[in-house]
């Protein structure tokens, strides 16, 4: 068992979490930061000015950090799973249209005026999940030729359906009046919804989805040999595939439902982990999860600071880093099947 990759990635995640809490439009001295966190855990009361600082930390920065962390973990983990499942270095939740499908589902749910209660909030991730799942099934069956799923078909079908879903999403947003602003910010990956509500809402979905993915490393390893060999080695292929697909879509849907569509994290992070620490999915999945969280936190910090006080949508930051990387992967995948 190699410990070092986990140490590096966890250290990266820890640092990004600290910076994410410490950095913001209001400067809070590091000493106060520590005191507030300890006090928050002990449920102590503060006097001014610590009281305001405390509110900023515990009710704004902490929940936001938690939501970004969970989203990044979901994107990194499900990206690794999709790449393994489709045996395709270019697959990620965004490319094969799952995120767009989830987005469509979420906007559909938002266009219905749910009461602003806990269950009203729960309806959005549920709809995003259904949208994601339907997209997977649709793209999968469109790309399928006989028993094989050719890479090109998969990406073409995914991109095509993704554009369709995005167009439909835009149309729905233009038609609905009230929730429009919320929907636009949401779609660009601005997780501007404050408070702990969203975090608690996505948590069960992510716990199940990512939990199942973490158990699927060995099955994904076997699937790299192709379905036939995997079955000959004793893997119940259909069951394993379905389970992984459901788990990855659940995680994607949960991430997308509160944080919007954030591309490229699910593509970049698993590739870097694979290049650095090897192709074993039992290691790759947890590492992608941890580093996905760290990478998105880093992108979020950049998005908050480069144009402060204005905020960039985090999707723009990940794309600016992601596109060059994506092109590089594309070249690499063409030159050698060494991923």
């Amino acid at each position, binding site marked *: 068992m190699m410990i070092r990759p986990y140490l590096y990635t966890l250290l990266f995640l820890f640092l990004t979490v600290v910076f994410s809490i410490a950095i913001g439009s209001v400067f809070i001295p590091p000493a106060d930061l520590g005191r507030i966190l300890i006090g928050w855990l002990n449920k102590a009361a503060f006097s001014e000015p610590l009281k305001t600082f405390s509110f900023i930390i515990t009710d704004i920065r902490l929940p936001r950090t938690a939501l970004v962390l969970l989203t990044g973990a979901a994107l990194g983990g499900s990206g690794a799973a999709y790449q393994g499942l489709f045996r395709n270095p270019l697959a990620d939740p965004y490319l094969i249209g799952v995120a767009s499908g989830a987005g469509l589902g979420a906007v559909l749910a938002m266009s219905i005026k749910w009461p602003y209660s806990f269950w009203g909030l729960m309806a959005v991730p549920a709809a995003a999940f259904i949208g994601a799942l339907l997209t997977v099934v649709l793209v999968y069956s469109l790309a399928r030729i006989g028993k094989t799923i050719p890479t090109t078909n998969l990406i073409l079908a995914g991109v095509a359906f993704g554009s369709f879903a995005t167009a439909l999403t835009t149309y729905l947003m233009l038609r609905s009046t009230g929730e429009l602003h919320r929907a636009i910010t949401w779609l660009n990956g601005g997780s501007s919804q404050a408070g702990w509500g969203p975090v608690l809402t996505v948590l069960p979905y992510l716990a199940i989805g990512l939990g199942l993915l973490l158990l699927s490393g060995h099955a994904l390893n076997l699937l790299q040999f192709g379905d*036939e060999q995997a079955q000959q080695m*004793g893997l119940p292929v259909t069951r394993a595939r379905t389970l992984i697909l459901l788990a990855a879509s659940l995680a994607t849907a949960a991430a997308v439902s509160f944080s919007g569509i954030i591309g490229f994290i699910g593509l970049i992070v698993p590739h870097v982990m694979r290049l650095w620490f090897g192709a074993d999915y039992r290691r790759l999945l947890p590492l992608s999860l941890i580093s996905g969280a760290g990478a998105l936190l880093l992108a979020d910090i950049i998005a908050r600071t480069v144009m402060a006080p204005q905020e960039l949508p985090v999707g723009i930051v990940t794309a600016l880093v992601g596109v060059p990387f994506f092109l590089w992967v594309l070249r690499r995948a063409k030159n050698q099947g060494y991923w």
Partner: protein
Amino acid sequence: MLRIENLSVSFGMRRVLTDVSLEVNSGEVLALIGPNGAGKSTLVRAISGVIPLEKGRIHSDYVSGSSVNLLSLSSVQRARSLAVVPQAASMPPAFTVWETVLMGRTPWLNFLGQVSASDEAIARLALQKVDALDLSARRVGELSGGEQQRVLLARALAQSTPILLLDEPTSNLDLHYQVSFMETVSALARRDNLAVLVAMHDLNLAARYTSRVALLVDGKIKAMGTPLQVLTPELISIAYHLPVQVIPHPFADVPLVIPGNTAPVKTP
């Protein structure tokens, strides 16, 4: 022992295998020969359970002592009684040899694939048997065709099954590796009492390293028996549409098939 009874397979409207029956005894290597498109690979895949049968039964007496239909088993149970060495095609290049061979232990592991010390010992032994232990740390993508084929054999051996199916394992190997690969396979069959079925193209390699030969033409078994019984000029020239001569091997007690030119053959 592996026994196949009246096995038929169709792809859509096309009959690929018709009433194939054969038996492979423990400790024996049976060569499955036949021209391209005769259905050799399909037969191997059908026996391993990855394509549906139209009809037929596949029996083994290893599982419970009495005869068991392999297709009624779960994929895990089947993978405990039967391992496949696929055609040297797609192996994920990024895994190491050691990781690849350990994956052969899958039917004996839990869903997480946690390996014990004894699993590692079995994998190491499998690598030793094919003389590839020194490749352990290498990535599969860096290996030559011959080395990859030995790794696939080691992976199948690590499955610890009494039955072994090999699909054209020597097709991509040079002369030296062809001979040493088949020597390894026939030695393993005898020593570990395995029932081995090898689909192959090289008739002379089949004659030298297998105890019996089954000739498959157009999805039907045309002949089965010792190499001397099956590798006759009549049977081979009709099956392959090529005149052949068969002469005694200069230093082994087996036939040697020498192909002629591709003139049309008259059916006697």
